[in-house]
């Protein structure tokens, strides 16, 4: 019989997986690890919980390898997890929405084809999605990069993921972070944390790792 704490941890992990897999078929283990760290759950406790959930059939392992993820991801951080078919939330269906927009807005959207999306419709959908995120998370905006659009902390030059990693490296201590990075503000740190808690997948990208083909120097 699992203890109350174990059962609570299992429910918590299942909820994270359910939230994430509501929009995706499976969750990379590395993302789940980052999410757990954000929530203050240590790696070992998470690993035990996941193992128990997999053993009891409440989670299943899917892909075992993530090509191109980077060679420094620890062995137990690779692969993905999903809920059993019966327990998986269905991805929400897309709705069609017909709207009349001013010519100027249409031109502005058309200028983003190839950047924000491949068609006028996908650009409009992406723009609306970002607008909704900015409403929900004040202090966050979006920027383009080779890996696609990503959330940034307005006015800092930092990605949300970068800010969160810096916060995690400081032991989740805002004061210590602000001492080391005096040009940042408390509200900016909090905006990043709030966004990342709802989008833990942003923490799965390689960060601070050696890029392929780039020589290491030790100084």
């Amino acid at each position, binding site marked *: 019989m699992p203890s109350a704490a174990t059962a609570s941890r299992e429910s918590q992990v299942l909820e994270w997986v359910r939230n994430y897999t509501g929009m995706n078929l499976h969750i990379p283990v590395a993302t789940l690890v980052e999410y757990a760290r954000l929530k203050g759950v240590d790696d070992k406790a998470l690993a035990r919980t996941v193992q128990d959930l997999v053993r009891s059939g409440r989670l299943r392992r899917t892909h075992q390898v993530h090509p191109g993820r*980077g060679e*420094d991801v620890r062995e137990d951080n690779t692969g993905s997890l999903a809920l059993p078919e019966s327990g998986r939330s269905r991805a929400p269906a897309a709705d069609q929405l017909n709207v009349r927009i001013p010519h100027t807005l249409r031109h502005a959207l058309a200028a983003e084809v190839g950047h924000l999306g491949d068609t006028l419709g996908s650009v409009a959908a992406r723009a609306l999605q970002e607008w909704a995120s900015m409403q929900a998370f004040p202090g966050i*905006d979006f*920027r*383009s*990069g*080779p*890996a696609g659009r*990503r959330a*940034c902390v*307005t*006015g*800092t*030059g930092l*990605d949300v993921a*970068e800010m969160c*990693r*810096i916060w995690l*490296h*400081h*032991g989740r201590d805002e004061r*210590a*972070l602000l001492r*080391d*990075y005096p*040009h940042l503000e408390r509200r900016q740190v909090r905006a990043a944390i709030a966004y990342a808690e709802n989008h833990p997948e942003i923490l799965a*990208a*390689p*960060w*601070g*790792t*050696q*890029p*392929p*083909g*780039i*020589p*290491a*120097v*030790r*100084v």
Partner: protein
Amino acid sequence: MASGLKRAGIDAVTAIDAGLAGSDDDALLAAAWALGRVVVTYNTADFAPLLAARNAAGALGPGIVFVSAKTLPPDRVGPLVKSLAGLAGRAGKGEMDLSCGVFLEKE
């Protein structure tokens, strides 16, 4: 970090001070290089492909320093500044070429 580098005699600016806080990565890299500046980042995912594309096109610039989060984490600014200052010193003497990118680790 930029102020620490300045104290160590290195001419450094943050993306904010350079007016590039809201810029896309490609624009930031282009602007930094146009100013003759090396970009220092932990962001492997976005800047490594940009550098590779520029290297492939033969468009070399002052360079990019990718910092190791494992050996030079962002919560240890002192060692990070020391390593960067040491690297800048060696690059300044022509002992090291940063134009194709380097991955900086703590000695």
